[in-house]
């Protein structure tokens, strides 16, 4: 089994609580010769985008995972059944992980081998059952997150690897999922191309990423506060992919039959500090190279006032918007439906009007 996945997989023994196995690959940051065609050679033209410090993101995720109460920050990633965490008031306690799992269920197939990229504490696998996915492979940069992953009935491999350098052979997986991890990838076209490569033909990629207008309230408040207090501003929110670009990205990576849709989640918080604390607890702190290393307390005070005044609701809470983009793409295969050939129509559009005519006769 390990030979099929990757030649350099090492089995380090099973963690006690689940039927899975550990693998650590030293491949973060180096595309090795043993890997098949990871992105680099396929790139035309100049340097890669380098927006985020992946090492910093790993440290932040590790820190967030080893918090005592890390589950309370998971509301965005997974289901929130019983009691909402004390720091926030949810208007819609929707969950990304379970929605991605819903999309997997919508496909009437059983997937022998699935991959979760940037899965962290594995919020998708706990919603899936063995009938749908037989074996699961979980990837993340953060070892602490993998250690503390949620239990699932599917046998899981854990692989410590960077999302931008997938250490898997071509045509390995039937299903690749990714939930809230793609927005920290530096080279998104390259990563999508790698996902395309590790998929088998007629395999499917289902992803959810944060995009578009996420946290625009926080961004604007901080921008205005810094402008007024300090005379200039620096970016505190990372750049996001617009939904219009996503279709192009997936198409360029080689995916077919694309589906992209948006979900707007508004979470209400008591104040700006709770927003920032929760983001930190989720492991979503800023790790862009151009981030400012500190935020003046005057600026925080000003931003709190501006946020409340501009976006606050009547009950005193402030909303934070998370725009989640869901995408589904298929690796091409002959069995997939293709556009019909020109000139092969058998009915005309003019006949459409005849459909709604009241049936004195047996018209369809």
């Amino acid at each position: 089994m390990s030979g099929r996945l990757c030649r350099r997989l090492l089995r380090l023994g099973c963690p006690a609580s689940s039927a899975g196995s550990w693998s650590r690959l030293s491949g973060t940051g180096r595309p090795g010769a043993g890997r098949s065609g990871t992105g680099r050679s396929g790139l035309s033209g100049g340097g890669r985008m380098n927006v985020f410090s992946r090492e910093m993101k790993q440290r932040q995720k590790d820190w967030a995972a080893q918090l005592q109460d890390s589950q309370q920050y998971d509301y965005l990633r997974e289901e929130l059944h019983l009691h909402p965490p004390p720091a926030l008031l949810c208007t819609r306690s929707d969950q990304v992980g379970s929605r991605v799992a819903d999309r997997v269920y919508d496909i009437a197939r059983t997937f022998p081998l699935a991959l979760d990229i940037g899965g962290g504490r594995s919020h998708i696998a706990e919603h899936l059952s063995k009938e749908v996915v037989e074996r699961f492979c979980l990837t993340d940069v953060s070892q602490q997150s993998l250690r503390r992953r949620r239990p699932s009935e599917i046998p899981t491999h854990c692989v410590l690897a960077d999302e931008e350098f997938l250490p898997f052979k071509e045509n390995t997986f039937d299903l690749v999922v990714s939930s809230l991890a793609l927005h920290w990838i530096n080279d998104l076209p390259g990563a999508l191309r790698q996902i395309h490569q590790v998929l088998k033909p007629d395999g499917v990629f289902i992803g959810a990423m944060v995009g578009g207008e996420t946290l625009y309230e926080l961004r604007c408040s901080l921008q205005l506060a810094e402008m007024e207090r300090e005379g200039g501003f620096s970016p505190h929110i990372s750049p996001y992919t617009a939904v219009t670009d996503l279709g192009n990205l997936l198409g360029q990576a080689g995916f077919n039959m694309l589906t992209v849709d948006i979900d707007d989640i508004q979470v209400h918080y008591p104040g700006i500090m709770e927003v920032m604390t929760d983001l930190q607890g989720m492991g979503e702190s800023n790790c862009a190279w151009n981030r400012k290393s500190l935020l003046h307390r005057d600026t925080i005070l000003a931003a709190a006032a501006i946020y409340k005044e501009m976006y606050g609701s009547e009950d005193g809470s402030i909303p934070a918007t998370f725009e989640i983009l869901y995408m589904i793409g298929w690796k091409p295969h002959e069995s997939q439906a293709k556009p019909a050939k020109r000139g092969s129509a058998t009915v005309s559009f003019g006949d459409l009007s005849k459909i709604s005519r009241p049936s004195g006769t047996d018209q369809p």
Partner: protein
Amino acid sequence: MALPRVFTGAPSILKQIYLRLSSSMSGSNVWSRTREKMRLFPELFAQCANEAAVYGKCVAATTTGTQELRKDLCAKEFEALKICFTNAAKKRAR
């Protein structure tokens, strides 16, 4: 996404060295003390809701009006807010 940068992991060399020397973060150090102080922020801020609203309105007016936002445009309102905040902090510390 945003965060007061001083609270995240190891921004500076000094902090890295400090963390390696001290055995764990559970002891009292400048970062845990600062973090504790920041925890009081929402409570103190809630006591200055009026001043905050006035300041917020002043800044928000620039987004709709013709006047462009520049440094210290709403300095008076901010001073009032800051004084209220500092007083609330002093009262609490007592």
